């Protein structure tokens, strides 16, 4: 034994210490207002992170074009969650304690949304959720947690309305085995029972590639519609293989997450099997409820030279607009004042006029549900088929 080499420990201690001191320092009273955004930039839903980045760009262009907030320029710190709760918590840890952001928005996984809302509420930092659908997030009735995006209950009631309107009698319910999948499955099961629609349920893996086993069970059941709650590439394989085994186009597939049906590789992966597939979305070119939505669309096309691929970029745009408005109205960066301002929010965003529920005791507390659309791919064109007031066509069945 040559004795402990203290040199090393000293080096670690000093190096670590210096690292903390030298870290590009963030001035708290700087001339910018920082807003925290969290979203999956890596991992299996990294596509959503890319969409978020686009929405952030547009929102910053908009607000800084107007001269910023409280006389300062606005800046966004976009932290990665990787779609993993721990990373989400770590991201909030950094945003709140290092970047000292007054408010955080974003996220798209239920699990991450739930974890972050615990953390944000603990730090008394307002958090506006864009795309985590789990009911639990708002039904906990946390003071600092808001959601300006779909919640499972809202989505399911929309889907059931549509099923009833079309008169479907027999459904297969396929759900991924995650919180979102299991949560939405539970709600759908209850709603289907209430609506007197006969159904079977099947669990699947989000990124599973081979669905023949599940599909043969569905074949045997012979449903009119298959409700697939799978938020991942798995659903592409599912759609393609459903066609191979002859399940579609006899039965209609409804994809209940939305973005997977709009991902750029959708048609490459599913081929003609994608025709007549239905999915849920909160955005469509033809269904622009107001000027803000139209501006968003035009600016997007102008900036990126293409149409938005899915609605996630608009979701983050939406919550950022709400956040800007709240800071302006509160005229402060204080958490409690921001909560007050958010509760009174009536700003117009692309999905309509924001109005957060303030009555405690249900999922609707601090919840703003943007209207959802049901869209069908008809000859590779999106046709809005529900609700009727914005529909551009009718459901086509074989």
């Amino acid at each position, binding site marked *: 034994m040559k004795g402990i080499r203290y040199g090393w420990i000293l080096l670690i201690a000093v190096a670590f210490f210096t690292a903390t001191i030298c870290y590009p320092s963030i001035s708290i009273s700087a001339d910018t207002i920082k807003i925290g955004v969290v979203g999956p930039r890596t991992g299996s839903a*990294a596509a959503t992170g890319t969409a978020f980045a686009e929405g952030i760009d547009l929102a910053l262009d908009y607000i800084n074009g107007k001269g910023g907030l409280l006389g300062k320029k606005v800046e966004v710190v976009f932290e990665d969650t990787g779609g993993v709760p721990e990373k989400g918590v770590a991201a909030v840890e950094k945003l709140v304690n290092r970047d000292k952001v007054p408010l955080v928005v974003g996220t798209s996984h239920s699990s991450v949304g739930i974890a972050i809302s615990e953390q944000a509420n603990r730090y008394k930092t307002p958090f506006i959720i864009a795309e985590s659908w789990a009911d639990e997030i708002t039904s906990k009735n946390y003071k600092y947690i808001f959601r300006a995006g779909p919640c499972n209950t809202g989505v399911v009631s929309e889907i059931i309305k549509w099923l009833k309107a079309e008169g479907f009698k027999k459904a297969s319910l396929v759900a991924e085995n995650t919180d979102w999948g299991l949560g939405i499955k539970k709600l759908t099961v209850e709603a289907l029972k209430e609506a007197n629609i006969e159904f079977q349920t099947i669990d*699947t*893996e989000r990124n*599973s590639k081979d669905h*023949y086993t599940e599909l043969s069970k569905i074949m045997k059941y012979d449903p009119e519609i298959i409700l697939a709650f799978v938020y991942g590439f798995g659903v592409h394989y599912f759609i393609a293989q459903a066609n*191979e085994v002859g399940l579609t186009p006899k039965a209609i597939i409804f994809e209940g997450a939305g973005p997977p049906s709009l991902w750029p*590789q959708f048609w490459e*992966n599913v081929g003609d099997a994608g025709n007549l597939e239905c999915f849920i979305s909160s955005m469509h070119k033809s269904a622009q409820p107001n000027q803000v939505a139209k501006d968003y669309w035009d600016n997007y096309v102008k900036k990126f030279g293409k149409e938005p691929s899915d609605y996630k970029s608009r979701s983050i745009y939406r919550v950022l607009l709400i956040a800007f408005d709240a800071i302006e109205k509160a005229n402060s960066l204080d958490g409690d004042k921001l909560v007050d301002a958010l509760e009174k929010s009536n700003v117009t965003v692309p999905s309509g006029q924001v109005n957060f529920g303030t009555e405690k005791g249900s999922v609707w507390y601090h919840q703003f549900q943007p209207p959802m659309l049901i869209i069908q791919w008809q000859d590779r064109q999106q046709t809005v088929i529900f609700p009727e007031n914005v529909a551009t066509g009718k459901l086509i069945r074989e």
Partner: protein
Amino acid sequence: MNSLFFMYLTNGIVMGIIFALSALGVSLIVGIMNVINFAHGELYIFAGYISYILSVKLGISFYFAIPIAILTIFIIGILIEESLIKPTYGNDMYSLIITFILSIVLQNFALLVFGPFPNKPPNWISGATNMFGLFRYGNQRLVSCLAAIGIIIIVFLLIKKTWFGKTIRAVSQDRETASLMGIDTSKVNMLSFGLGCAIAGAAGVVLAPIFPVTPLAGVEISLIAFIILVIGGMGSLWGCIIGGLIIGIVQSFGAAYISSGYKDIFGFIILILVLFIRPSGLFGRKAL
């Protein structure tokens, strides 16, 4: 016994053959070099990406895209062997660690270059076949499965019948003697590592139309390959085929009759059973 049962069985066999092909390259390398190639799955997906780019982006017919993709992976394999594996000879653990790190690097590289979306080369054939009037089965799957069988046969012939095959079998049985007999073992290593990677590439090319590649898809391929390796016995090619079939069939029936959420776990359970009953694997040479 009903049509569902035959459907599960057919799918199990098809998936089994596909799994066997996915594991073949890794098994070959272990048998000859005693090196586990953790980056196996990543080479598989790279081949898938190359064939995707060639056929979709550059519009090259898949008859050309396939050999180009396989050849590229062969060359990449040789480069990996020469630059990273060679210095670790004699230290199995280090080669394991290096290829593990390499697999993480390649995954993240793929994520950066190709993005997170799945990429799918066009189907070779469309439609589905009615199997014995019982159920419909995708044509592309059947064709890919036939191609997989073809590749497996070619690999077997290469190893059992050719001069190169004899050489690598000699090296895998007794490296020292082989080298005394004038065989350049480091060249054999290089070529057989390249060959193992090329088989991974071939698997990627054949399977990408059914299972589009994503940056992380390789992990699953590697895991299945490793399970088959242990079940079948390290370095045994027949073990690889039988192990693949067992996993394919068990997964298919397990998902059907037990739980599809636990689909991936059935393979692991078999692995543990095999370790209990016959630790050297079904076709393994008995360990010392």
